[in-house]
């Protein structure tokens, strides 16, 4: 079916087009996506790290800021003088300005508190002896400052204690006269973390000390727990790193994975830890992937549409060519579809096709014409062959008849000749006996009667032999020109008609001229008349009708009829055959002779007979030219 095949080429083109264009694109695209994803993930990790580092710096600065405030304050002249009143004024001021500062203490050179102010202290707070504490020992030592003593203020807020020495710069070298210590709330760090790393899902950020103390957390709830700590697993990982920064993927017990990064503060010994679920971390990379996938889908769709269009465009003229070829195949040379003649190979093909169809049309026309001619000629030939076959058949029949007649003639001739000898002997002998008897006394009348019978039978036998020999005789025709009416008149006038027969003559006044062998023709007519007389025996008798007519131009008809018993149809067909007879005595050659004579004159014999009415023989003979 043409409809089933249609578009196959288009699909093939589409397939290869897609294969050629999309496969490399897909491969490269996939490769690019993988590379991009990897670099994006690295980038994400680096960003995570830098965030950790940035926050480590922030934390460092946070603490350093307060240390600087303390250092500046402690270097003031009023402070070195250790005048409690003056000192108190400064400390109050610090409390006012820096809300994160929860408590301030001035220790003398013995490590005993001499001044202590705080936001939640009563009017006369207890003065502690802190000379054993690191905050005193370290601040008075060569490092000259102390940052440490992480603890929870009132069990809740994480705080750090910073202390700096109060140096009397008047002495050389400078001599510490006391220590200024401050307990600073670390809550702002948590607030900053919460702002910078909003805690969603598993995302979190934290600052921990090396021993696991939770300094700050992006989720404030974590901070306010009395036992607030980072999970040990995480803590173990980040506190055992040799590098001061780092990061990577971290598998969790529940099978999820985290992207984690950490960074150490410059000199506080704190660690900033940032983590987020890998999905969130890689969200952008996944987005990129899906974006690329979308783009790919669009590209594929666009390519398919484009390919369809291209394939359609390429195959459309081919389809038209195919339609045209189909029509040509069905022999429809007219109304071929309009063929696109583009300036390319398909155009060339269309041109070639048009040329071919023209030539095909021409050739087919010639073929059809030739076929018709051939059919005509074949019919003509068939007719000729039929005619010739008929002629041949007739000739063959004629030949067979002639051969048969010749054979019969030959046999008859031999038989006749051979019978004539004994017949002659019998004849001689009976003549001798007759002669002898006649010379003596009166013979017995019965002997005389029998001699007559023998003589009569000899005559009859001789007559039969003559008839046979006449029929079979191969005699040259001796043609003469006669006037039919006159010739017939003469024949009838000498014919010995018996008394019981009436002759009924009717001659066409247009007397015909014939070229005939008069002897033979006379024999034929006589045979017919003789037959007629024989079928009308006395006493009834009957009429012999002899009539002539000009049948058609060039032909004359001689009818010889009788009013006898007629011939039944089944016998009628055989009456002209030699040796066919219905008589008790007869050679059956009478009508055969008629047929032979008429044939020799190129004429025709017909017979019409009706039982009880009579029989008419019709001889048709060509007239003389």
């Amino acid at each position, binding site marked *: 079916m043409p409809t089933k095949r249609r578009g196959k080429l288009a699909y093939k083109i589409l397939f290869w087009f897609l294969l050629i264009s999309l496969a490399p694109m897909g491969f490269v695209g996939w490769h690019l996506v993988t590379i991009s994803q990897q670099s994006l993930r690295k980038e994400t990790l680096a960003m995570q790290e830098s965030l950790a580092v940035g926050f480590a710096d922030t934390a460092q600065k946070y603490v350093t800021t307060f240390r600087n405030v303390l250092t500046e304050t402690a270097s003031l002249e009023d402070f070195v003088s250790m005048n409690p009143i003056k000192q108190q004024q400064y400390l109050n001021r610090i409390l006012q300005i820096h809300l994160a500062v929860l408590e301030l203490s001035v220790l003398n050179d013995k490590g005993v508190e001499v001044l202590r102010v705080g936001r939640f202290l009563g009017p006369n707070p207890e003065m502690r002896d802190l000379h054993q504490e690191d905050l005193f020992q370290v601040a008075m030592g060569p490092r000259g400052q102390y940052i440490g003593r992480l603890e929870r203020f009132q069990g809740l807020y994480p705080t750090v204690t910073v202390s700096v020495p109060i140096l009397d710069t008047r002495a050389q070298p400078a001599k510490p006269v006391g220590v200024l210590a401050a307990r600073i709330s670390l809550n702002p760090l948590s607030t900053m973390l919460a702002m910078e790393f909003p805690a969603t899902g598993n995302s979190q950020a934290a600052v921990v000390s090396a021993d696991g103390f939770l300094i700050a957390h992006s989720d404030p709830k974590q901070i306010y727990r009395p036992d607030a700590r980072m999970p040990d697993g995480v803590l173990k990982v980040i506190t055992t790193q040799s590098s001061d920064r780092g990061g990577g993927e971290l598998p969790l017990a529940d099978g999820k994975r985290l992207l984690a990064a950490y960074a150490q503060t410059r000199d506080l010994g704190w660690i900033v830890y940032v983590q987020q679920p890998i999905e969130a971390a890689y969200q952008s990379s996944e987005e990129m992937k899906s974006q690329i996938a979308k783009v790919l889908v669009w590209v594929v769709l666009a390519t398919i549409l484009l390919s369809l269009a291209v394939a359609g465009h390429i195959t459309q003229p081919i389809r038209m060519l195919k339609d045209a070829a189909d029509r040509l195949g069905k022999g429809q040379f007219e109304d071929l579809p309009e063929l696109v003649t583009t300036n390319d190979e398909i155009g060339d093909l269309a041109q070639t096709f048009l040329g071919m169809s023209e030539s095909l049309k021409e050739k087919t026309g010639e073929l059809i014409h030739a076929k018709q001619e051939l059919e005509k000629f074949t019919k003509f030939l068939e007719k000729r062959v039929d005619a010739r076959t008929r002629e041949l058949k007739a000739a063959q029949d004629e030949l067979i008849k002639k051969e048969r007649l010749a054979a019969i003639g030959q046999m008859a*001739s031999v038989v*006749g*000749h*051979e019978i*004539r*000898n*004994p*017949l*002659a*002997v*019998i*004849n*001689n*002998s009976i*003549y*001798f006996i007759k*002669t*002898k008897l006649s010379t003596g006394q009166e013979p017995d009348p019965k002997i005389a009667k029998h001699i007559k019978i023998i003589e009569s039978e*000899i005559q009859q036998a*001789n007559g039969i032999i003559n008839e046979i*020999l*006449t029929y079979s*005789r191969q*005699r*040259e025709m001796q043609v003469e020109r006669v006037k039919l009416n006159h010739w017939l008149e003469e024949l009838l006038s000498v014919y010995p008609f018996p008394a019981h027969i009436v002759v009924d003559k009717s001659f066409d006044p247009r007397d015909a001229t014939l070229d005939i062998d008069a002897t033979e023709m006379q024999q034929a007519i006589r045979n017919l008349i003789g037959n007629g007389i024989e079928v009308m025996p006395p006493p009834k008798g009957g009429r012999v009708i002899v009539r002539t007519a000009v049948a058609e131009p060039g032909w004359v008809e001689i009818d010889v009829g009788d009013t006898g018993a007629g011939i039944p149809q089944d016998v009628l067909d055989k009456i002209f055959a030699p040796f066919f007879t219905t008589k008790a005595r007869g050679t059956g050659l009478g009508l055969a002779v008629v047929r032979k004579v008429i044939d020799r004159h190129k004429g025709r014999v017909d017979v019409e007979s009706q039982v009880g009415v009579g029989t008419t023989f019709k001889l048709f003979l060509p007239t003389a030219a």
Partner: protein
Amino acid sequence: MTNLPKLLIIDDDAHLRESLAEVLDLDGFECHQAGDAKDGIAAAQALEPQVVIMDIQLPDSSGFQICQELRKRSKTVILIMMTGRFLSSEEKKQGFELGADEYITKPFDLAELSARIKQLLSRNAPRG
């Protein structure tokens, strides 16, 4: 010796020539017979018949040859050819040229034959 006219019959059929001879004997001829051409010619030489009746077909020769032969020897002998078949005009003409006087077809009308022979003989007979 009688004065009857001598007649020679040449035919291979013994019955025919005997019956013919005896019939003609009755009619006043002196009939002799021969069974073939050789005997016939010999008999004709010996007997010098006035009439020879011969069959056209003989076992050793054609009747026409005997006819020709006999005519050479005698201008007056009456030569009658017998035949059992139809002869064409051409054959008859040829026979007459070779010297035949008459043709008769078997079976013969003997009275007619006898009369014809006598008529022919009467012509040849010396007049006066």
